[in-house]
């Protein structure tokens, strides 16, 4: 068994009066891809946004329970959210490059966290990040063009490059391919296979095929509850819960 990177314990999340997550407990293994599947509104995005405390931005959101990364409680009072997010990168559903140049998009994180001391260090980080995100060859001649001018798939890879520029341990991906065409999706999936040698990846996806292709473990969420989490083969071939069975065979959701 691999090392456990993230551990969630009895996680309950409320948006105002409405409870979005009920007693979710699961762990995620280091340098593996964990997929979270389930129908819309099932709480999988809420869960992933707890892992880098993106829910803090929403005033009415209340998180109870415990999430540990490498054994440290990320909701502890002395936890610096900015440092947490440096370690836990995130890629969103819709590509959201900043309206800056490709270079500046990737340099954003290193600049904020003071990672690069000299300009040459910064350039090295940007080039390496773009290479790791399999984007460098396509944009090497126009690093100073606007990042918003790229195609959707390129924009999403730019966002991945941006996320890995600060050398995080974990990358959260919230439906990263739902706005992309099948070819761009295939490229991102290939990329994930490369990235998991260095990073722990958590991916929320609507596509069960995608979960089956990229992940080693899969969790199935339904109505705010974690119904089942297991090895991906087990979930898709021999699930223990009837609801999982119904979902993966397309009976609902």
């Amino acid at each position, binding site marked *: 068994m691999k090392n456990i990177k993230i551990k969630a314990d009895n996680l309950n999340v409320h948006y105002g009066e409405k409870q979005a997550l009920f007693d979710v407990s699961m762990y995620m293994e280091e340098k593996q891809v964990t997929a979270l599947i389930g129908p819309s509104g099932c709480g999988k995005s809420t869960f992933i946004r707890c892992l880098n405390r993106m829910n803090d*931005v929403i005033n009415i959101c209340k998180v109870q329970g415990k999430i540990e990364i490498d054994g440290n409680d990320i909701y502890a009072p002395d936890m610096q959210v*900015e440092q947490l997010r440096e370690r836990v990168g995130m890629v969103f559903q819709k590509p959201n*490059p*900043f309206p800056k140049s490709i270079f500046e998009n990737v340099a954003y994180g290193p600049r904020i966290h003071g990672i690069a001391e000299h300009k040459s260090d910064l350039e090295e980080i940007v080039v390496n990040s773009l290479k790791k995100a399999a984007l460098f060859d396509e944009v090497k001649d126009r690093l100073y063009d606007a990042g918003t001018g790229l195609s959707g798939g390129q924009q999403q890879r730019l*966002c991945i490059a941006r996320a890995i520029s600060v050398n995080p341990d974990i990358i959260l991906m919230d439906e990263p391919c739902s706005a992309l065409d099948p070819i761009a999706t295939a490229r991102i999936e290939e990329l994930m296979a490369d990235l998991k040698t260095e990073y722990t990846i958590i991916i929320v996806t609507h596509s069960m095929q995608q979960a089956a292709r990229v992940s080693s473990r899969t969790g199935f969420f339904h109505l705010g509850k974690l119904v089942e989490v297991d090895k991906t083969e087990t979930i898709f071939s021999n699930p223990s819960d009837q609801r999982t069975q119904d979902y993966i065979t397309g009976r609902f959701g």
Partner: protein
Amino acid sequence: MGFILISLIILIGITSYFLGNLRAKNLRTSNQKNLKSLSHYYGYYVALWALVPALLILLMITSFKSFFIEQYVLSDFIALGSYTETELSLLFTQIENTALGIKLFDENTILIDGAVNKLNYINKTIENLTYVTVLGLSGLLVLYSLFNINNKLNSRKIVEKFLLVLYFTCSLVAIMTTVGIIFSLLYETLRFFSQVPIADFLFGLNWSPQRVFVREAGDLDTRDLANAFGAVPLFAGTFLIALIAMCVSVPVGLLTAIYMSEYASPKVRDWAKPIIEILAGIPTVVYGFFAALTVAPLVRDIGQGAGLTVSSESALAAGFVMGIMIIPFISSLSDDVIKSVPQSLREGSYAMGATKRETIVKVLLPAALPGIVGSFLLAVSRAIGETMIVVMAAGLNAKLTANPLDAATTITTQIVVILIGDQEFDSPKTQSAFALGLTLFVVTLALNFIALQVVKKYTERYD
């Protein structure tokens, strides 16, 4: 007569609506005719025929009536050939007064009495004719259009077409007004520049239009006149005061906008935003006496306390109050622009571990910059065009200075000064106001144009 006649026409209009409606309904039920539109559209159709031509004719008659009457009444005097145009128009006023029973002069009594009779007669005749023409036309057209209702007529389309013409006419009113203003400005400005060279106006350093009177007294020649209309001190004063206003409003407005869009809770926002926007609704004359009676003395006292010479009317006081006035232009527009930056960019920045301040400075403001600059430009054009505050608080003395503690004057102030009280319209002093107005117009138009372009460019960005 106008009121009764118009009431009658409207009455015909309303009646004809019901007639048209009724006739369409009757046709539908009795003849089994398949009409193209709903019956009330035929009501509108008939009513339009009843109203529009009659009102247009009435408008034409009223516009040309007075000219015609004057010609007719004065025909005897014109035939004499010994009166100038001005005398004729004075005579006509005299005749009108006599007709009303006011008798001031005793000369020409026979001729004037005759003319008074003519005036009464022509007035009565034209009134009767107007009644007959307008009402007759209206009635005839109602009959015509009533009989015109049949299954080939699509009244719905005709009503739509009429509305189209109406909308077009209304928008034309605004456009034609603008064009008219531009041309009258241009005309007077050109007359001004025929007396004062344009280069002297644009680059001259001395503004003292009162010299025109001195010249008329015969003491100065034209070269001195040219030297009296150098507008540079006014441009400089306008620029100085606008600059002070922007120094106040840009930081305050922008920080307000950032607070409102990124930090304020919805509750605070709900009550604070309208209050800030009230600033824009305060009449400028109120700002004016606030500036003149409160801020200017305060500036003077503080300045004197610091050992500086401050005049009691200072550019600083006027600029400061003007800056307060235009805060809402900047804060409100910039607030909207910052708020419209997509939430996904904020999340992207937060997810990189950026703090709120870093997100605002490094992502939101750059993304919103064109819109923010647009709001600055709109505020500048407002500051340049502002009149009341500077008239009351900045002084009237056109001297070329960059010292904000000194009195300064602006283009708008000088226009006010020139056009207050009696003036001759062919004096270069009066015409200089038009030249100043045109300059102001061109500058603000250019600023507005640039601002709108900048904002437009911004809005296309996220679509």
